[in-house]
């Protein structure tokens, strides 16, 4: 299943966890676990959490990197 997830990601594009779960016939929770696993193995990277640079940014709260683990990118 992990390899099928990687295949989907390698095809490129933007994915939602729920769409990936549907494509793999599993639950979003399991997809999130797999993403964490792929991240440990270095295949994907969580989008960096906000640093102090973001502290003064008025959009920081709504910005996706402010919510760790919510966004991932494929490591190239």
């Amino acid at each position, binding site marked *: 299943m992990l390899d099928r997830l990687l295949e989907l990601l390698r095809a490129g594009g933007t994915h939602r*966890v*729920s769409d990936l779960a549907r494509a793999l016939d599993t639950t979003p929770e399991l997809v999130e676990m797999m993403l964490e696993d792929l991240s440990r193995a270095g295949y994907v990277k969580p989008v960096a959490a906000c640093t102090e640079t973001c502290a003064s940014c008025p959009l920081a709260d709504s910005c996706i990197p402010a919510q760790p683990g919510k966004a991932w990118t494929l490591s190239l």
Partner: protein
Amino acid sequence: MSTCHPLQKVSPLPALQERPILVALAGQPNVGKSTLFNLLTGLHQHVGNWPGKTVERKEGDFSFNGVSYRLVDLPGTYSLTANSPEELIAREFILRERPDVVVAVVDAATLERSLYLVAELLPLPAPVVVALNMMDVARQEGIQVEPEVLQAALGVPVIPMSATRGVGVQELLETVERMARGDLPYAPRLPQIRPDHREVLEAIEERIAGYVPGPYSGDWVALKLLEGDPEMTRMAREALPPERWEEVHAILRAHDDAQVAVASGRYEWIGRMVRAAVTRPRIGQIGLTERLDRWATHPFWGLVILAGILGAVFWLTYTVGAPLQGLLETALVRTLAEGARDLLSGAPAWLSGLLADGIIGGAGAVLTFLPILVIFFAAMAFLEDVGYMARAAYVMDGLMHLIGLHGKSFLPLFLGFGCNVPAILGTRVIESRRARLLTILLAPLVPCTARMAVVVFLAPAFFGPAAPLVAWGLVLLSLATLALVGIALNRALFQGRRSAFIMELPLYHLPNGRTIALSVWERSWAFVRKAGTVILAVSVVIWALSTLPGGDVETSVLAQLGKSLEPVGRLMGLDWRLTVALLSSFIAKENSIATMGVLYRTGEEGLADFLAATYSTATALAFLVVQVLFIPCMATVAAIRQETGAWRWTVFSIGLLLGLSLLAGTVTFQVAMLVK
């Protein structure tokens, strides 16, 4: 494992007669493992450290139904892959101490996560009983877990329980006792490695057979070697003859993707278990979010909805905000300016000029569009709070992929709508140097709030009721330019490489007034502070340059500068004043307005009315087009220099935007003149 022969039931295992049943409690953190441990052992606990580690070791004794137990609380772990001391301790304890039973505590509400550990426990040489804890929590969340189905699927006993309420504990202990005595069948269904790697696993098993020291088993070690387990790799290297190890190592090197194959098997297994035993709610909030998202994140309709919402925001901003801005200009700026002139009638002319024309006319004019911004910020905060902005980002990203842009670029560019500076700093999330550079070059084409503030002020002044349409068109123009430049640069720099981006969208929810109010306050206050500092300072400098040397605007230093640039400005229908206003926006975008306020010295008439009466539609449109595409503010240019680390890219960016904006302005003006 083994089932017992009936004769064995009559005389229990001799070992168990002499010593308490040794039970290991395994589970990930926060599944109620400690609650169960405390409930069972009460005051009979011994706390120490695991040998040679700083990890706490807890064990305790108790008896139930006349049977003594020794319970060892293994450290909370998510897996057993020797990634941490805790994982290693848990694994080594089961392998070396061979507990009579391992109780795997799992959380019924997050079964997937808990089952990964179970998938790793089952191949170890100790029988497992699953304590399906937090059944009450799962039920409250509407998650239905069927213990009998899970038991059948796993092939090991599953006891539903709720440790905090003491529910199911008795059944658990009875099962543990029967399992320890061998009274229960035990036939766990183990996760299997992905079929295409089965041969590789067997090849390793063959080569290490006979060399694996106790307490490890050959098949388990082979699996761990494929997973790249550092402990087992070290052990195998020491235990195997060098030439054997070389063979094994060569196989491992040739299959460096085996880790994925092993984990993949476990996930397939978890997926099967969960599909069989768990029913999740598909009603209420989740259902609503999914229904709305069917439209809001649709590749085509999502963009149409985004454009519609953006249009509605502008319409609301202008319809409600513009009259308030006019009111503020009449009530505040003009009254204050007149008051200042009256008050300073005896003072030198330059002082009253500085205060009335420079400070009040410049920074004051900027402050009058605070109501417009408050409404704009409130609308944006509302969209963020209900969860729509994440969808906007999502559909925009889809669009970016369609036009061949790098997926990772979307996040920083999205930030650019707030301010271009964090957008450029945000490109640090992109590792690829070329992708990062491209994103930095594109970021200034995202219309930031300061640029939008200028548009929001000038559009109603020039275009009246058509203002929302013009503003909307300007945003689309910016984004279309971004897309076209992106395609061109992407082709030149990237040759269309693909990348993936995964995000989770929050559920839609009712807006929270306090969150919105706080956001509006923070952004508005930041704007007022800017008006009181940078914009005020620039207003004073512009006033000074427009007054010196003789006190007449037409012969001032600034006029001379502006007039020297007039040939360029004329192509776009801009006079020297508009050209200077454009140039001053380099310090901060809002300065365009402040500069106009200082230069026109409109007094009674009001800046907005004066502009409407002075400039043609073609000039107004050309000015706005140049304004949104022009060189970004000084802070953004500094950020570009810092992040690219090269002046040549900074100059390239400035040149690119200058060229683009002048070209677009000229085309707009010339076409508008023809149409007229």
